[in-house]
């Protein structure tokens, strides 16, 4: 199912009298093609969950429209939308067995018992929990509960699958495994899926389309790699990537990009104050390089090494440069010089924080 979000806005009235109302989501416009896995990404309080709940119908938007395949469902009740929703803490009914939990939506559709059982088993197989059907939720591990929740959402063959922070309650190892699982299930079923996360790595690794939000406003929409390579603004550049991007205060003078007194790149923009963002992997060690950094220490990670460096123009306490482990660095150097890969260097207007593309 194609989802079209048009000028969606959600304003929560203030709790206290005379207080400020909260603009959870502002003027959001997104087109989601059918069968894609979409991640809503942003720090907490950015309105991503509110958006998800408006898609589900549990929250009503203040203004704007939501279309499923050209049908306006904006004010349609949640149960009529044909969506599946996986809650952050799963919301499995504690008094029902796994099988009863999964079959519950089918019972409500008055589907015959045999067919219901068969479909529940299918859904359980899809998420590989068919051996646990007679257990109660509190007898399951977090990962298993997660799978039950997904099975329950899938069993009614929804047009849209919504997942609210699906991995946040799992431990690190399960998280990796489960996100692969979600990707696989989404591919197998071809259901348009929207999920919410604050973990950029998670979003990057499985999304077809990523929506980066901040304070209720969409910052950028696109494929994960293209957003990473081509961020719209300082926030997006900062939010994506581990280790995070290095930001320096700099300026453009005569077509050259200066950080401190060193010209480290070129640009066609006019002279102005800018933020210079350099991805950690954008540094190339060169004894005669353009950019000098003071070395704090070097961390060896095996596959590569990470130079933790200092620079007076950096907006963060340290600067991180990742270089190949076979590059030989001078022993006990207090300063290193680098060249910067031009496509790993981004310029942002110092005032608007918008990217200079």
């Amino acid at each position, binding site marked *: *199912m194609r989802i079209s979000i048009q000028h969606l806005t959600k304003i929560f009235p203030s709790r206290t009298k005379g207080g400020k109302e909260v603009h959870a989501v502002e003027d959001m416009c997104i087109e989601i093609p*059918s*069968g894609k896995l979409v991640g809503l990404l942003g720090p907490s309080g950015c309105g991503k969950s509110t958006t998800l709940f408006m898609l589900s119908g549990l929250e009503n938007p203040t203004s704007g429209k939501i279309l*499923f*395949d050209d*049908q*306006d*469902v904006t*004010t*349609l*009740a949640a*149960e*009529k*939308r*044909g969506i599946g929703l996986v809650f952050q803490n799963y919301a499995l009914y504690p008094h029902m067995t796994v099988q009863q939990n999964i079959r519950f939506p089918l019972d409500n*559709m*008055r589907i015959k018992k045999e067919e219901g059982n068969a479909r529940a088993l299918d859904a359980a197989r899809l998420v590989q929990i068919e051996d646990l059907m007679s257990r109660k939720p509190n007898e399951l591990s977090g990962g298993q509960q997660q799978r039950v929740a997904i099975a329950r959402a899938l069993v*009614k*063959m*929804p*047009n849209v699958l919504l997942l609210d922070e699906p991995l946040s309650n799992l431990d690190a190892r399960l998280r990796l495994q489960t996100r692969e699982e979600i990707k696989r299930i989404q591919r197998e*079923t*071809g259901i*348009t899926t929207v999920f919410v996360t604050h973990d950029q790595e998670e979003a990057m690794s499985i999304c077809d389309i990523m929506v980066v939000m901040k304070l209720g406003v969409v910052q950028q929409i696109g494929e994960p790699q293209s957003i990473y390579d081509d961020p719209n603004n300082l926030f997006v550049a900062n939010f994506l990537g581990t280790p995070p991007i290095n930001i320096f205060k700099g300026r453009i003078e005569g077509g050259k990009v200066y950080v401190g007194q060193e010209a480290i790149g070129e640009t066609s923009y006019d002279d102005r104050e800018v933020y210079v963002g350099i991805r950690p992997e954008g540094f190339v060690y060169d004894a005669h390089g353009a950019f000098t950094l003071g070395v704090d220490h070097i961390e060896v990670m095996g596959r590569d090494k990470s130079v933790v460096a200092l620079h007076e123009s950096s907006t963060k306490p340290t600067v991180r440069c990742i270089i190949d482990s076979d590059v030989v660095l001078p022993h006990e150097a207090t300063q290193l010089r680098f060249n910067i890969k031009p496509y790993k260097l981004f310029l942002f207007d110092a005032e608007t924080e918008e990217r200079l593309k």
Partner: protein
Amino acid sequence: MFDLLVLSSVAANWLVALMVIVILAEVGVVVWLALSIRSRKTAKSASVVGQWDLSAGDEGFDVQKVQKRERAKSIIKTVFVYIFLTICAVLAFLPFYWMVISSFKTEDEYRLSSPTFFPTMGFQFKNYTSVIAQTDSSGSFLQVLVNTLVVGLISTSLGVIITVLTAYALARMNFKGKNILFAAMLATMMIPGEMFTISNYVTVSTWKWNDTYTVLILPFLVSVYYIYLLRNNFMQIPNSLYQAAKVDGLSDMGYLIKVMVPLTAPTLVSITLLKFIGTWNSYIWPRLVNGTPDWQMITNWVSRGFTDRMGLYGGRYSETLDTLKMAAVCMVSLPLFVLFIFCRKYIMHGVSKSGTKG
């Protein structure tokens, strides 16, 4: 006094309003039932579920129609809920209302073949004065009031002290046989109180304790349930506080009074209130052990018949009169109301505590 003749029409309006409410409620039920059946029929066609095949069309998914029905349903539902709650609230309140207005009516008005919902034939306090003034073989109001207050205050304060001491020892102190003692105490909660009452009656009768305050106070001082409640409350206070107090040089007793009691104040207030209310409402035991009316409690007094001893109606009624009884009932209920209004939070706290333990 008040000129309330106008209000007889008000009373009629009341009845009409009541009938309308009932009829509306019934209409509500019927509409609700009809709607729930209809929505059941349309549920399948209205929903968009059941389509793995995403290219399939969306027939039967008329958003406008579904929305309209949803809105209508939710409005009807809300109206229905409010009507239902209003009826329940009216019925919950009706006995209190009836009791108060009856106590102000004359017996003549009370006996009208179609009851009035307001004292239309005059608002009189004579029922109250008559009931208070009746001092005869069945005990006087003032005497039983004094009895109840004395017994209530003593048994509540002693009872709370005993509860606190026992609960503290069971929660915080270590001594041989503590667990067995606690288990034995809990076990007695299973046994119906009547078994104790009968034996205690025999006991105090053999000891010739009849017609004393002691006999009203002593047997009910210990309440295992409150000890249990308070002990659990004490257990929730972290042990580190105890250790800190020890370091600061507090004795066990000092710790109990200065730390534990203030921390569990809400529960203690609840226990105090419920214990006093219990004394106020006690009926069986005083009637059993204190045969003399002047040694009985207020509930015993209210349960007797009140006849027109003071000659309010010139000897026209010889039997017991409901208006007098309602005046007495009001006087017994009023303190409970006052208590409820001022201590609602604590009483509800105490009551709901007992519910969530299960």
